[in-house]
């Protein structure tokens, strides 16, 4: 039980997917202009990564391993995750238009988010079982959401400031992200 909680906390804070592993940077920087949009993206990411790590775990344990072709995991995961997002999108569109509308354009965008693939591969590397994989995926996605919402709130405040001209736009965002990353290194000392 303790180790399961540890997996979630580790995914969310200690090994934060964006600020410590530098995955999913493009959407992290791209969709963090507004708090609301970044929160919706975060929700969509939690949804997709949790499902994707579950499916990837099953596929690895019951298809790739028995046939002894686990070296093909990257390609198979890409294939399955892309299809999975499509299926989830169609499913949501039919069954709950409200969720579909609030996730909107972000759902298909996540297909190309490297964090999704990164989590699936890290899980397999760590030799997690099915439940551990799902929890690790969930924790990682929560970590992504925390990071992007924090950056969005920082950016909303930065926008009102009178910055030196060379720092305006992308440079100050990268500097903020770097400072956040250093701050998150503090979680490395967390122990149970």
């Amino acid at each position, binding site marked *: 039980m303790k180790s399961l909680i540890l997996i979630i906390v580790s995914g969310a804070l200690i090994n934060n997917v964006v600020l410590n592993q530098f995955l999913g940077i493009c959407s992290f920087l791209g969709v963090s202009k507004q708090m609301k949009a970044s929160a919706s993206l975060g929700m969509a990411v939690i949804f997709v990564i949790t499902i994707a790590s579950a499916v990837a775990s099953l596929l690895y344990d019951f298809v790739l391993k028995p046939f*002894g072709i686990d070296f093909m995991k990257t390609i198979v995961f890409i294939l399955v995750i892309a299809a999975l997002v499509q299926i989830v999108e169609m499913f949501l569109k039919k069954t709950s238009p409200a969720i579909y509308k609030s996730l909107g354009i972000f759902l298909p965008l996540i297909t190309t988010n490297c964090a999704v693939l990164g989590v699936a591969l890290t899980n397999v590397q760590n030799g997690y079982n099915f439940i551990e994989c799902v929890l690790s995926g969930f924790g990682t996605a929560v970590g992504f959401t925390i990071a992007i919402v924090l950056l969005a709130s920082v950016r909303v405040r930065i926008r009102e400031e009178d910055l030196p001209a060379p720092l305006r736009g992308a440079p100050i965002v990268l500097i903020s992200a770097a400072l956040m990353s250093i701050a998150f290194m503090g979680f490395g000392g967390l122990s149970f």
Partner: protein
Amino acid sequence: MSTVIITTAVITLVGVIVGIALVYTGKKFHVDVDPRESAVRECLPGNNCGACGYAGCDAMAAAIAAGEAPASGCPVGGQPIADKIAAVMGVDAALQEKKVAFVRCKGSCDVTHNQANYIGVRDCRSAVLSGINVTDCEYGCLGFGSCATVCPQDAIRIRNGVAIVERNKCVGCGLCAKACPRGLIDLVFVGNTVSVQCSNKDKGPMVKKVCSAGCIGCMLCTRQCEFDAIHVENFLASIDYSKCTQCGKCAEKCPVKVITPPAVKPVREEVDDGE
């Protein structure tokens, strides 16, 4: 060798299963969308600029298909797109010519001056909020470039203290018009190059005092016009574009040359001169 065969077989199998699953869900969870919506979406430019007031081209297409937005609602596409959408929707598009922004001020640093040295945030709205009348002419361009900042097409430059629109870059979204605290920017049809480049509503001598290029309300243009298209109201000439034929006689006669001459794109030319 057997590894290659097993790999190929398994991956192919996974691919086929995924494909079948996709086709199945596609059929099973098919949602009927208005076929006109996707047809309208095809017509729209697809750069998601949001100038129409909707969240993007998809949202705009949904609104047009639902009858909430006019077929000519896309300011970027102009008449050709409006025609195409109207054909899809089966309605006549209201005649809509492309519009471009036009700055109704000619007050460059050569012809008018600032009476206050404003050192706050370099933004026209901040300058107006400061309560100090920064420019000599209280109607004129402040030149801090709020319009240039909001322009998504980078079509506005501040040159010699006055905002200048590059007509070939302008898409007519109207964001600059909303940004200008003095309301100097109008959207004019791209064919209308004869325009009064001043907004000062003071009497002639008052205008003369603050700006050597401002409209003094002398009425020479009104007398010159054969089509009754130009009138002076509040000591400021304004052109009725429904009557104006772009002959340019008013521009020739104007003693202060505040009316832009026809055909030669006036705004663009000034930019070239500056460079």
